């Protein structure tokens, strides 16, 4: 049974959800705008006699995650955009060695040091395998404090199930704002899946090597192909999305996270004016709900991608509508958040209404 609602910051709600999901170890490094999350983990992990380390860098933190994850433990790190860039080497290794872990990115504006205001410029980095090599990992995009908590809670199970990092791609708005949130009960450790591949678990088995090294090209190709078969399976069962006013919509707004909230407001304003707009909100950014996107394209819809970037997810919208649809883009960047009025104006411009 869900507990009574609490008013919490997104950062703290993700921390509480991780604790309840059974996070055994958290490793992080300070960076704005996610610092409340690290502080929350410090207090609550230490209170529960679990492992918390403020690492010397994001690079060290992700490799502590890798080491702890290699033992089969449930592990998490969190950061914001520049810090997540530093973690990409470790994420590539975790993907290459099939080590589950949870990575939270409370993203801010970039490139470079950028600013500390919310942005969605990390879409490419998150969904395209931000480090070196051929890989993908799960990316979940919450639109609210409640969903940030729920997706973080679930991310641990998904990471274990699919043996890979699961990233929660929030943004500074989701991390910093306060909303009502209720939590699911702490997960029973007995429900965790077995990890026979982990190190240090049992002496009654052949030795386990958790690594991503393959110097024989044929052997390595086979390993990569097997991993891509897993990806194909994930694409069938994992994509998740939310729709509003889609059926009769002439123009479908596509947006995730904070920009999806704004877009929903704009869609409601448009409907009041009799304009047939709808909203398609991907919740899994990888795997992207590409099949549904294709169906909507076949239904003859037009699309407007709304992002807090110069246009990144819009490329997936174009990709998965297979050139059948007109795809428009509206974005703000640098830490700006689009207003409902500006998005509505864009809708009116496109539909000439």
């Amino acid at each position, binding site marked *: 049974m869900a507990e009574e609602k609490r008013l919490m910051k997104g950062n703290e709600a993700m921390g509480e959800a991780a604790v309840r999901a059974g996070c*055994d*170890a958290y*490793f992080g490094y300070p960076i704005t705008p996610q610092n409340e999350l690290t502080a929350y983990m410090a207090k609550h992990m230490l209170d529960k006699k679990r*492992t918390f*380390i403020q*690492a*010397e*860098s994001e*690079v*060290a*933190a992700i*490799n*502590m*995650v*890798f*080491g*702890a*994850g*290699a*033992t*089969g*433990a449930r*592990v998490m790190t969190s950061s914001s955009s520049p810090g997540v860039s530093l973690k990409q*080497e*470790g994420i590539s*290794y975790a993907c290459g*060695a099939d080590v589950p872990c949870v990575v939270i990115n409370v993203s801010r504006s970039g490139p470079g040091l950028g600013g500390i205001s919310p942005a969605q410029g990390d879409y490419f980095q998150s969904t395209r395998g931000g480090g070196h090599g051929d890989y993908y990992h799960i990316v979940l995009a919450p639109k609210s404090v409640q969903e940030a908590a729920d997706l973080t809670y679930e991310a641990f199970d998904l990471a274990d199930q699919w043996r890979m990092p699961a990233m929660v791609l929030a943004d500074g708005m989701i991390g910093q704002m306060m909303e009502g949130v209720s939590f699911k009960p702490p997960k029973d450790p007995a429900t965790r899946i077995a990890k026979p591949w982990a*190190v*240090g678990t049992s*002496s009654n088995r052949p*030795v*386990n*090597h*958790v*690594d*991503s*090294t393959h110097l024989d090209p044929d052997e390595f190709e086979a390993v990569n192909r097997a991993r891509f078969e897993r990806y194909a399976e994930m694409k069938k069962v994992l994509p998740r999305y939310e729709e509003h006013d889609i059926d009769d919509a002439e123009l479908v707004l596509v947006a995730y996270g904070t920009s999806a909230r704004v877009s929903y407001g704009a869609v409601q304003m448009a409907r009041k004016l009799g304009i047939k707009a709808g909203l398609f909100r991907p919740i899994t950014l990888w795997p992207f709900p590409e099949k549904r996107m294709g169906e909507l394209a076949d239904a003859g819809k037009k699309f407007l991608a709304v992002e807090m970037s110069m246009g990144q997810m819009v490329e997936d919208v174009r990709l998965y509508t297979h050139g059948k649809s007109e795809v428009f883009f509206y974005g703000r960047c640098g830490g700006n958040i689009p207003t409902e009025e500006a998005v509505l104006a864009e809708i009116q411009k496109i539909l000439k209404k």
Partner: protein
Amino acid sequence: MELTYGHPKSLLPIQTKYCPGCGHGVIHRLITEVIDEMGVQDHSIILNPVGCSIWASLYFDFDSVQVPHGRTPAGATGVKRMKPDHLVICYQGDGDLAAIGTAEIVHAANRGEKFTTIFVNNAIYGMTGGQMAPTTLVGQKATTAPYGRDPIGAGMGYPIRVCEMLETLGGSKYLARGAVNNAANTRKTKQYIRKAFEAQMRGEGFTMVEILSQCPTNWGMEPVESVEWVESDMIPFYKLGEIKDELAGSANAVKEAGK
């Protein structure tokens, strides 16, 4: 008849990929002899670095984790925190530990992480083919120091004495430097390893054994010449012995002896 000398149980009986005269094989043997003597083979986990000893997991008959170059102490931190009852060995070369991974080793030592680092110092990059290492001696030639390491003129800096650097940190409890260039040094190095592993299993804090090792291939020497060079050139700069011993076990031994 009693078998007094054999192949260590936790070292697989296969030929290594290491070059003739390389020190890694001897060091692998010392580690596994101690593991066998302590009876902890099925409770041992090694983190092998990027470098020649990336092969370590092929030879050791216990679990391993392979982390990115230099991140070995961070990975070992994660492993040991989750598996405090296991012997966790962080095997690092001089490039891995003293160049790209300087931050990780300093902070793992300072936190007093309860694993043991085996730091193989052969004063050169082995696997990539003989580049200058942080521990390359002044004047020593390398592919990236073709005229010899020139600290001032060419701005190449000075060789780093890692044990001495880590000595000041509160979390480091045992730092020793041995060598495998002759039988006497090899035996002493094994004692250091044993002391470090036992301290780790008692949960005493950060322990490290630096081992001066020979790399005949990249030094451009015959194996015999290379063990002599360790004696004539490396040991005078990198003094052998226990650089820091703040182990409770050692303090008790001193107390006992004083009675």
